């Protein structure tokens, strides 16, 4: 039996167990604990998507849970709204709050979300306790109506059990769709290298804030279900400690696997019930709730240090259910060549120069890396920038591709000023680039890396991806990506993880990925360094081919031989200043160039 088949069987078995569980436990244990595991699973699925796939930690999920709960409670109780209308309001309110908090924080990069969300917990708690006329203060609100649709009133453990777990399964389905989509690949790219992701046109903050909004929505949903289930709400379940519990659930289950969220929620909830019976016996009553958090703290430390991927992978291994390496795209890739290769960007309508730099200057503190640099790159040429180490070549690339802002001066792409655009916008306008040290997305396959390059040429939105609506476009993207792999000679390794490629292949993969954005201008940062002589010959051929298909190439290279062989024009930089420019032959004999490379004596 194949692993896939066994996974399907296991999933069916789990659903079947969930379906009969209320009957199996009837009369023995309260179903309530399973309702809570379901509610917590919903929140933790969101948190795991955020941590495992968007690379951000939130310590504010309890606040969104509380927000959903209070929105549902207040709108139904104080404003007389029908509960089935309050539910989407609670979900939307929590999602909006998350989005409004997340969108600006993600612009900062780094890990500031954890602080912002921590603060949110405190603000939420203070508000709920003090705006008493709405929230009922510390004592809370009672008599919240149950969910009902028309005459159908949803009450009791069993009804909420089925309702909650239906939502859990739906959330797992949505999460899985998202992870396997264009958006999921973009998130994986951002996690691997935000800079390389920006270089293919991905706006990291855009996707992170949407994932965070989704996690807020799931927490809000859990909160609303909670109040309609219990018909009572008070501030204490939504405090900071619960945010910690949720993080423990998420990390323990495994942030990289969505079903791990359910496992984590179940383990922690059951463990806490057990602690509540054991702790008072061991320690006497009193601070047992406080000791609980100590146990969770140690548990978190142990898991994150010894098994950062949580228990889920171990569980799968134990059940012999590890999925094999996905080759989902191979079939799609076999279609390569069947699609007509899209024509190169029309060279006819081109202005004479593709790229123009005007008085560009970049200062890092006291270091002047680029000094009053102006040059133009004619369309359809290979333009090489050479110069000694530290001449400012890579800085020029970073300025052109939008990773750095110039201190003064401007960069124009086909007459349009691009130096005030963020890197992902510059990429979307057709500036592709590679990096001196290749930055591939190590945990995506070779083919998926190139599919990420197609990001701005594909359109599946975040919402469409959630509902699995991008499959057709994905297949087309895979086929097109395979075409680019074929062009660089990597098609036979399409299903290999990019992190496992040898160095030379990494350079080629980067070129394929950059070509996938259909650049009008391709910036190659030392494309031949570290390559064997056979690989170098291939790269020279490839660069010429790229030019001949209509893309203008700018390359930075130390291999002067390669530059003389391929370049149509050469610019020589030294200390951030232009010292010569022209045809390779002329530049080679320029005394200033010889002086810069070999010293004044050799020049005279």
């Amino acid at each position, binding site marked *: 039996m194949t692993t896939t088949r066994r996974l399907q069987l296991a999933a069916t078995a789990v659903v079947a167990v969930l379906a009969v569980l209320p009957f199996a436990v009837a009369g023995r244990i309260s179903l309530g604990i399973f309702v809570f595991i379901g509610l917590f699973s919903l929140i933790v699925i969101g948190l795991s998507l955020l941590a495992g796939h968007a690379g951000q930690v939130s310590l504010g999920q309890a606040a969104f849970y509380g927000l959903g709960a209070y929105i549902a409670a207040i709108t139904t109780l104080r404003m007389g709204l029908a509960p089935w209308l309050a539910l989407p309001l609670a979900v939307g309110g929590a999602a909006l709050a998350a989005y409004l908090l997340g969108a600006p924080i993600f612009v900062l990069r780094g890990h500031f979300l954890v602080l912002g969300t921590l603060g949110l917990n405190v603000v939420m708690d203070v508000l709920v306790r003090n705006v008493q006329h709405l929230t009922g203060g510390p004592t809370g609100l009672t008599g919240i109506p149950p969910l009902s649709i028309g005459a159908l009133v949803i009450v009791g453990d069993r009804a909420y059990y089925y309702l909650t777990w239906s939502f859990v399964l739906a959330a797992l389905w949505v999460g899985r769709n998202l992870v396997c989509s264009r958006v999921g690949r973009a998130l994986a790219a951002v996690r691997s290298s935000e800079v390389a992701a920006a270089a293919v046109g991905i706006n990291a903050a855009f996707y992170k804030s949407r994932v965070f909004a989704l996690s807020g929505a799931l927490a809000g949903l859990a909160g609303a279900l909670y109040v309609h289930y219990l018909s009572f709400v008070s501030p204490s379940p939504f405090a900071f400690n619960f945010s910690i519990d949720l993080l423990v659930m998420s990390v323990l289950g495994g942030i990289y696997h969505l079903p791990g969220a359910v496992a984590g929620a179940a383990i922690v909830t059951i463990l806490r019930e057990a602690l509540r019976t054991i702790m008072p016996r061991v320690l006497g009553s009193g601070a047992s709730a406080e000791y609980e958090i100590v146990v969770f703290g140690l548990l978190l430390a142990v898991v994150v240090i010894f098994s950062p991927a949580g228990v889920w992978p171990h569980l799968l291994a134990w059940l012999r259910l590890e999925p094999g390496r996905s080759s989902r795209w191979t079939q799609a890739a076999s279609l390569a060549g069947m699609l007509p290769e899209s024509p190169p960007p029309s060279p006819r309508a081109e202005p004479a120069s593709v790229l123009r730099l005007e008085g560009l200057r970049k200062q890092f503190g006291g270091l002047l890396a680029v000094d009053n640099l102006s040059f133009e790159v004619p369309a359809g040429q290979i333009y090489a920038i050479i110069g000694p180490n530290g001449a400012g070549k890579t800085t020029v690339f970073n300025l052109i591709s939008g*990773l750095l802002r110039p201190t003064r001066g401007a960069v124009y792409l086909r007459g349009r000023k691009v130096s005030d655009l963020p890197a992902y916008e510059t990429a979307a306008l057709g500036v592709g680039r590679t990096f001196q040290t290749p930055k591939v997305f190590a945990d995506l396959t070779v083919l998926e890396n190139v599919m990420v390059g197609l990001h701005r040429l594909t359109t599946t939105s975040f919402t469409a991806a959630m509902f699995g609506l991008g499959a057709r476009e994905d297949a087309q993207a895979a086929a097109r990506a395979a075409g680019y792999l074929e062009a660089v000679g990597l098609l036979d390794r399409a299903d290999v993880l990019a992190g496992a490629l040898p160095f030379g292949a990494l350079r080629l993969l980067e070129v394929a990925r950059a070509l996938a954005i259909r650049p009008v201008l391709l910036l190659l940062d030392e494309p031949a360094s570290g390559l064997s002589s056979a690989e170098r010959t291939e790269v020279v051929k490839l660069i010429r081919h790229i030019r001949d298909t209509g893309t203008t190439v700018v390359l930075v290279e130390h291999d002067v031989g390669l530059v003389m062989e391929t370049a149509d024009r050469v610019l020589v930089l030294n200390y951030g200043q232009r010292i010569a420019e022209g045809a390779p032959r002329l530049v080679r004999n320029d005394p200033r160039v010889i002086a810069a490379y070999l010293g004044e004596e050799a020049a005279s």
Partner: protein
Amino acid sequence: MTLTQQIAQFLASGIINGTIYALLGLGLVAIHSATRVVNVAQGEFAALGALLASTLVTRGMPLSLAAAVAVGVAAAVGGGVYRTAIRPARDAGPLTLLIITIALHLSLKGLLLLVWGTDPHSLRPFTAGPPLRIAAAVVTRQSLWVIAVTTVVLVVLYVFFTRTILGKSLRACAVNPTAARLMGIRVERMSALAWMIAGALGGLAGVLIAPLTLATYDMGLILGLKGFVGAVIAGMASYPWTVAACILFGVVESLGAGLISSNYRDGIAFGVLIAALLWRALAALRGGLIISEEAAQE
């Protein structure tokens, strides 16, 4: 009390609180710049310092010695935490390190709970005597100690970072660890030093504040977070601006709590934190996308 007197009073207590936050904020900046870790457990150093000092004094140790021991132990704990929990995972990525500091926060808090229990502990003021009157505000003698000691510490830190090879090495590691390593600086040792400094500053904050409030095992989180507010406003990078921002934040918090309602005190504090994050984000947007550290390292 007239409104002017009230405001003077709020200003004074805001400055004093802000000074305490500054000690925590400086520790956070030291750790963040040397090891790129956002240390959620920073406040626990303060709780440790406060509890330890109060117990030692209760057991009969002279206050100055108890304070020194408490600060020293907090520094040692800072270094120890780095060696045992942070360094082994330093290649695991920022997300893992962040979760580790959250786990550290919980574990250290738990340890404090096991040793000291839930009861608050008190520490006598450094000098006895009635409060002093400064302008329109009434200020306790301990408050003056807070300001005096912190000022001395700031001067010492300034000299350390600008005049000593060790301090300059530490700054070099913060700017570019790879280049620092190539210059023969032991980055590992500097990271441990940063954590020790953060531990010592946190412990000192605890010792200074214990006579003003009370020492409890769970006092750390809120204190540490308030240090964060100032550090974030100052961009998690500049020591002097962190101090300025923390003091300003202390004043805003105190005025807000005093003039609106003390129930909202922490709400105001973290409202300011969120506002500070948004403000920094807007500044970052205006300044354009900054090349990230991964690229700057090359």
